[in-house]
Structures are given as structure tokens and as C-alpha cells.
């Protein structure tokens, strides 16, 4: 009999062996969300004459399983900025909620001015795409520095404080840059070269019409569906201009032709 009170009522060591506390050991780095689980694939975007077109398909994959087929990965902010998320979907939802909160706070703060009816001033004082781009960059970098990154690659489209179109990219390390055309994930390899054919420089992009830009994006989405095994033929497309955002969230890839597939050889069950 063990007479020590702290041992009473506990499994006896001589019967069950010593208690193994190792799995209760919480020291060491936190390991939640240290790798993506449910993921979205590429986001692509291109600038044109008076705005930006962005697109992403509606798929959230669980590994190679096409798990959710109606996940909207383009989000709007204050009706002036579009944010596209590639990477982990739960982190995207976290960021979405976070940005929503930011938008609400911002709307309250920007409210009363001495010139109540000055709507233009009110709008100018709200966070624009340039502000959001910088904010996301700081947020992502802060998270990577605390070894708990948000596993996303984000595209931001809208207008900066000089009212110029802005298209920026932020990744899970906080790396950020702008470009006339941008793509995340597989799109960086598959869609970016196509978009560069049409808008290699800012000057080229400034010559593109809206129709041309939408055409390029649709062409890229098709190539991505053909060649990216984690993609879907249903996608969202957003067009940002000074007048606002046109967001269509249930587009179907048109005029698919899989004829080329017969000629692909070298893997799978083929023997020749």
C-alpha cells in the first residue's frame, strides 16, 4: 500500500507501469496550421487600361481530393478593392473575417467630419488597395516571424492613393511586389507567361482594353484547368474599375477542347 496521499486514487505504478507524461509535454513549437490542409490553387490577375481583372476557380482541395467545389476565393473590401486568396482555405477565412472587422472599424472611424455632406472626402479617407496591400504584407510578415504563418499567397487589386490601378502580391513570408500581371501557385508557371505576352510592361497593360483583358484571363483559366490537376472549370472573375467592382462568382469555362489530350504520352497506364 502506498501511503502517500498524492498517489491515492491513481493507477498503481506496480500494476500499470509509470505514468507516461510525454504526450502532455507542450514545450517546443506550436504545430497547428504549419502546413496547409484544405487548399485553393492559382489566382491570376492582369491590369488593363482602366482597371484590373482577377480570377480564381471555385475549388478547395483536400490534398488531391476535390473536396469543396463552391468556395469563393475572391473577396471584396469596402467595394473598392478585390483580394484573391491562394493556399490554405481556413487561413483565407481567418483573413477574410479579419479584413471585415478592419472595414467595419474603418467605417466607424471615418464617419463624422465637420463637413457632413462631403461624400467625396469621406470616400477618400477610407482604406484603399494600396493601404490594404501594405497592411497584408505587414500582417503576413509578422505571422511568419512568430513561426505561425498564414499559408496563403494573396493578390490585391484596386486603386492606390494616387488613383492609379494597383496590383500587388503578398505571400506567406510577407514577400510583396507589384506587377502588370500576377499569378499565384501553378499559375505563376502556367498563366504568367501567357499574360506577359499581352502585358509585359505597365505601358503594354495601359493599352489593353477591358474586353482584351477579360479574354486573356479566360484563356489563362482554360490553360490552368487543362494542366493543373487541382483545378476546376467553375471560377470567379472580378473586374475592378473606378466605378466599382463587378464580381461574378459562378462562371463556367467555355469552349473546352480535350482533343490535345490524346496526344499526351509518357505517363499513366499507356504502354507506348
Amino acid at each position: 500500500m502506498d501511503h502517500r496521499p498524492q498517489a491515492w486514487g491513481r493507477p498503481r505504478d506496480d500494476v500499470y507501469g509509470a505514468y507516461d507524461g510525454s504526450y502532455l509535454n507542450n514545450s517546443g513549437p506550436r504545430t497547428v496550421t504549419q502546413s496547409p490542409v484544405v487548399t485553393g490553387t492559382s489566382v491570376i490577375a492582369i491590369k488593363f487600361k482602366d482597371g484590373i481583372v482577377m480570377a480564381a476557380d471555385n475549388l478547395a482541395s483536400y490534398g488531391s481530393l476535390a473536396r469543396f467545389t463552391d468556395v469563393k476565393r475572391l473577396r471584396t473590401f469596402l467595394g473598392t478593392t478585390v483580394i484573391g486568396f491562394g493556399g490554405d482555405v481556413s487561413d483565407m477565412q481567418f483573413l477574410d473575417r479579419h479584413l471585415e472587422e478592419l472595414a467595419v472599424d474603418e467605417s466607424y472611424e471615418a464617419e463624422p467630419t465637420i463637413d457632413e455632406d462631403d461624400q467625396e472626402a469621406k470616400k477618400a479617407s477610407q482604406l484603399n488597395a494600396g493601404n490594404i496591400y501594405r497592411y497584408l504584407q505587414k500582417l503576413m510578415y509578422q505571422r511568419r516571424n512568430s513561426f505561425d504563418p498564414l499559408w496563403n499567397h494573396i493578390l490585391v487589386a484596386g486603386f492606390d492613393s494616387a488613383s492609379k490601378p494597383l496590383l500587388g502580391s503578398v505571400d506567406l513570408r510577407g514577400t510583396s511586389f507589384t506587377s502588370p500581371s500576377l499569378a499565384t501557385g501553378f499559375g505563376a508557371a502556367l498563366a504568367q507567361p501567357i499574360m506577359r505576352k499581352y502585358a509585359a510592361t505597365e505601358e503594354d497593360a495601359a493599352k489593353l482594353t477591358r474586353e482584351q483583358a477579360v479574354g486573356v484571363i479566360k484563356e489563362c483559366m482554360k490553360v490552368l484547368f487543362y494542366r493543373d490537376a487541382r483545378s476546376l472549370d467553375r471560377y470567379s472573375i472580378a473586374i475592378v474599375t473606378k466605378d466599382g467592382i463587378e464580381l461574378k462568382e459562378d462562371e463556367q469555362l467555355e469552349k473546352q477542347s480535350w482533343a490535345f489530350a490524346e496526344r499526351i504520352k509518357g505517363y499513366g497506364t499507356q504502354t507506348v
Partner: protein
Amino acid sequence: MFRNNYDNDSVTFSPQGRIFQVEYAAEAVKQGSVVVGIASKTHAVLVAIKRNAEELSSYQKKLFQIDEHVGIAIAGLTSDARVLSNFMKQQCLGHRLTYSRNMPVRSLVDMIGSKAQINTQHYGKRPYGVGLLVAGVDDSGPHLFEFQPSGMTEEMVAFAIGARSQMARTYLERNLDKFKTSSREELIEHGLRALKESLVQDRELTVENTSIGVVGYVKGDKEGGEEKKKKVEPFQVFDGQDVQRYLELVADDKKDDKDGSGPQPATVADEGEQMEVDAY
């Protein structure tokens, strides 16, 4: 003798519902020399009278730049103002870093408002003994805010705080309608005139005792037919010889006010008098 029993700390109400420590702090603001602020559609200006402790000493600064787009004028305890000013500088810098824009002046003023209010509700703390006029521009235009030790903040078209500031406020009220459309120079002129009103007899505005601070928008140049965003004229303080040309603008109107709305006798009689306190 009667002694006030309800002014030992800032958390105790008097039976009349007053908090004396907060009222004393407001008195400290009235001890400071006068500062005037005015905002128009394009600019916000601050003007101030500087004081020297003695003939041989230099004049204490009254206007401070907080960030590119914000400046403050102080009346009261300079050392308390320093704490607030450092805090505001940090907030503006932090905002610029995370959002890459000028911090909205209202958010900035709200922050010092909350900070100051906390001091009036905690045992062992004391209110700041300083009042501020905060002038700045942000994406929604030029702004002027008043800040009081109680934590009260308010957006103003024009305002004056400090010793004998009632005279300056009377001038500002008389000319209220003109400010909105005033130019940069006119705004400074109005500020100096208001300042003059509150001077004691035989005192004058000189290059030594006058400070002027300006912040605003300059018209951006048109580029490719498209109107560019307005450019910020950073907050700038003018002292010494730099204020000479502005002083000359208001040098002649001592006696004859050209609007015919000459200085009127001060309406508030109790200013500068001993404040009334509960005695038990």
C-alpha cells in the same frame, strides 16, 4: 479656514458632482500662453504667443510637428505635452508603417483623448495639465481639433486656448464665415489678428514671441489631362525672422479694424479670477 476636501484625487466626486482635479487641470491650460488655430478648406494654421521665463532666457516653444501631416500647439504644462507629443509621433509613424498613409487626424486625436480620460478615472493618477490644438491634413481634408485634459476632444473650425483666449475666440466667432474659403495667407492673418486681441496692454507681437505653424494641401500639377491627387504641404513652423512678413500684414490694424467690427470688451468676466470651489 475652509479647506476643499474633495480635490485630493481624480476619482472622488464632490457633493456637487464635480471632480476638482480635472478642473484644476483645466486651470493649468488657462495659465499657458494663448494659442489659436483655424482651418479652411485647404489649410490648417496654428499661431501662438511664446513666453520667456525671464528677460535673459529664450522663449519656450509652443508649436511642434508630430508627423509630416500633423502639428500641435500647446497651452499648459510643457512637460506633459512632451509625453503626449511623443505618443502621437509614435502612433503616426506606426500607422504610416502598417498602412502607408497619413494617419487620419481624428483617430489620432481620439487616441490621446482616451489616454487622457484614463488618467481621470484611476486612483493615483493625475490628468495631463495641458490643452492642445491639433492641426493636420489627411485624406478627408484639413482638420483642427481641440484637446482638453479631461479627455474631451472636439473638431473645430477655429479655436483658441490659453490665457485670455476668450478675446481671441470672440474675434474668431466674429469672422467665422470667412475661414472656410480663406487662402493660406489670409488664414495666418486671421490667426495673428485673433492673437493680437488677447494680448495684454503694451504687449505686441514680435518676431521673438510669435510662432506660426502651417499645414495644408498644395494643388497637384495636372499630368496628362488627368487631375493628380492633391499634394500635402507638410506641417512647418515659422519662428523668428520668418514671421516678420506675416507680422507686417497685421501691423497697421491696431486701432481701426477695417471690417468695422472692432474689438469688443471681453464678454467673460470671471476669466483669470479665482475659480470657485466647494468648501466644507
